[in-house]
């Protein structure tokens, strides 16, 4: 899993290097969202019933940018607290397409990341004939898919974003991915 983490970091740095913004050098947008997370099949249920809260901070760079559309790459750090299941820390990078309709926009992102899980469920490893407790943290690959919509003001944007992400490999009863969903609300603005 350390390898996955290092590969994710390397890829993130790589895509940042590739996705330079020739139009506005030196301007680095900062994205901050808070979100409600659940383990769930894709749906819109129960975001607000006993929400598991998280925060995500990231930036994005652009492969191309016109008045009406952006092709972009994000890099994000996030954390969520899921009661009785896990704390999740993650780094992700997503490829995205954003379309503007005047000041309103929608975007679609897909990406991959590394999820560091701090499990709430005690873990045990077999040693000889016995089982010994082991540490609560372990890593997983984190595929993501997001659909967002927002409004651009003069100096910042506000938006909401529906995200599906997985932790894989999972494996119980042959299920390869444990699916999560998250509903984000956030803002994006430029850092000097």
């Amino acid at each position: 899993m350390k390898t996955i983490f290092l590969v994710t970091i390397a890829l993130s740095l790589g895509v940042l290097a590739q996705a330079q913004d020739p139009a506005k050098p030196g301007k680095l947008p900062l994205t901050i969202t808070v979100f409600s997370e659940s383990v769930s099949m894709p749906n819109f249920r129960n975001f607000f019933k006993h929400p598991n809260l998280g925060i995500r901070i990231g930036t994005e760079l652009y492969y191309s940018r016109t008045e009406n559309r952006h092709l972009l790459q994000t890099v994000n750090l996030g954390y969520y607290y899921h009661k009785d299941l896990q704390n999740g820390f993650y780094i992700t990078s997503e490829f995205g397409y954003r379309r503007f309709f005047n000041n309103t926009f929608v975007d679609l992102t897909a990406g991959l990341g590394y999820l560091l899980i701090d499990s709430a469920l005690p873990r045990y490893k077999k040693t000889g004939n016995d089982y010994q407790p082991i540490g609560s943290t372990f890593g997983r690959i984190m595929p993501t898919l997001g659909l967002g919509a927002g409004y651009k003001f003069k100096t910042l944007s506000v938006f909401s974003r529906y995200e599906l992400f997985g932790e894989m490999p999972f494996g119980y009863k042959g299920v390869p991915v444990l699916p999560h969903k998250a509903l984000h609300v956030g803002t994006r603005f430029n850092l000097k």
Partner: protein
Amino acid sequence: MKPRIILIFSLLLAVACSNEVIVPVPPMQEDISYETHPKNQLYETALRDYRNATNSPGSVLLIHRPGEELWIGAVGKSNLAHNTSMNTNSQFRTGSVTKMFTAVVIMKLIEQGKFTLEDKLANILPTVNGKIPEADQITIRHLLGHLSGIIDPPNESLRYQADIINNPTDMYAMTLDETLETYVYGKALHFTPGTSYSYSNTNYWLLGKIAERTTNKTLQMLMEEIILTPLGLARTYIEKRDDRNVTRGYADLYNNGILMDVTLWDKAEGDGEADGGLISTAEDLYRFMNGLFHGELVTLATLEEMKKIQLPTCNTPYCEYGLGLEIWRTDAGIAYGHNGGLVGIEANVLYYEDTGGISVLYKNNGNGSDKSWLDSLMK
């Protein structure tokens, strides 16, 4: 601005909420040794092999063969957090073994004239009318024998399974009516009632509801009256209780050999429910099977009805199911009983018709397992 945000984020990570599930300390439990049994070595070796082969923290085996003294063995741990040894009196969740107990309650109520096997769900439980299709065609027999066609959320609904992982505390607190409303009502049947077989936990949820509604008693009270008190099963119950004395369940969720304590999920799925909520011991389950198959709980005529394959057109082992009884074709002959599984446990109870033997097998890892090795011990 940027350093400030990084600082805030770093602080958040540093104070990330402590989330570990607290495992209560279990009380001491009395253990009985069967070391003087003539076949102790043989049985214990088989049990140890089973525990190792299934990557289970602990396992319990009971063997009763006519002409031989009862033998019970326990190996490994019942609670890894507190290094508690499994013992011959350890209480454990039994999963779908519960269905035999629920079926006995229903058959006893039928003997008492409360309703009949052919009574319709729509008449006996009018609240499901319009919510379960063809409720006016589904009979008590269809429910007991899994011939109703009603869907089975624990095995078919990814939403149900995800909800247990997502919030086991909420699932544990859900009433049966809420469960039915959320996962069952309004869903189409798999087939016309009575024409095919499809195992469904919902059938037993509804049977529990029927038993309670027609008697104005809880399922716990009914089990006490009909089964537990007559047979003296002091370590068996179905109601939700403090479970610190109950064996904990484990599962290899990530298929990497690491076991995780999934007791919260097992509680959420099973506790209190007529399909899989029974908590018992190996000896109590043996006494139940002995009582059932010797006519102490229901009449022998009722027992014969329970043993019959209910689907007339059944021609595969898959559909060989009676009224709350699985029918196993083993190398030791036909056996009646039930297997039970939750995420973190597996239980199996069988009565071997040819020999009159009874086996009870339990392990606290919820993966399925090969139990054919039991046949040679039970011949």
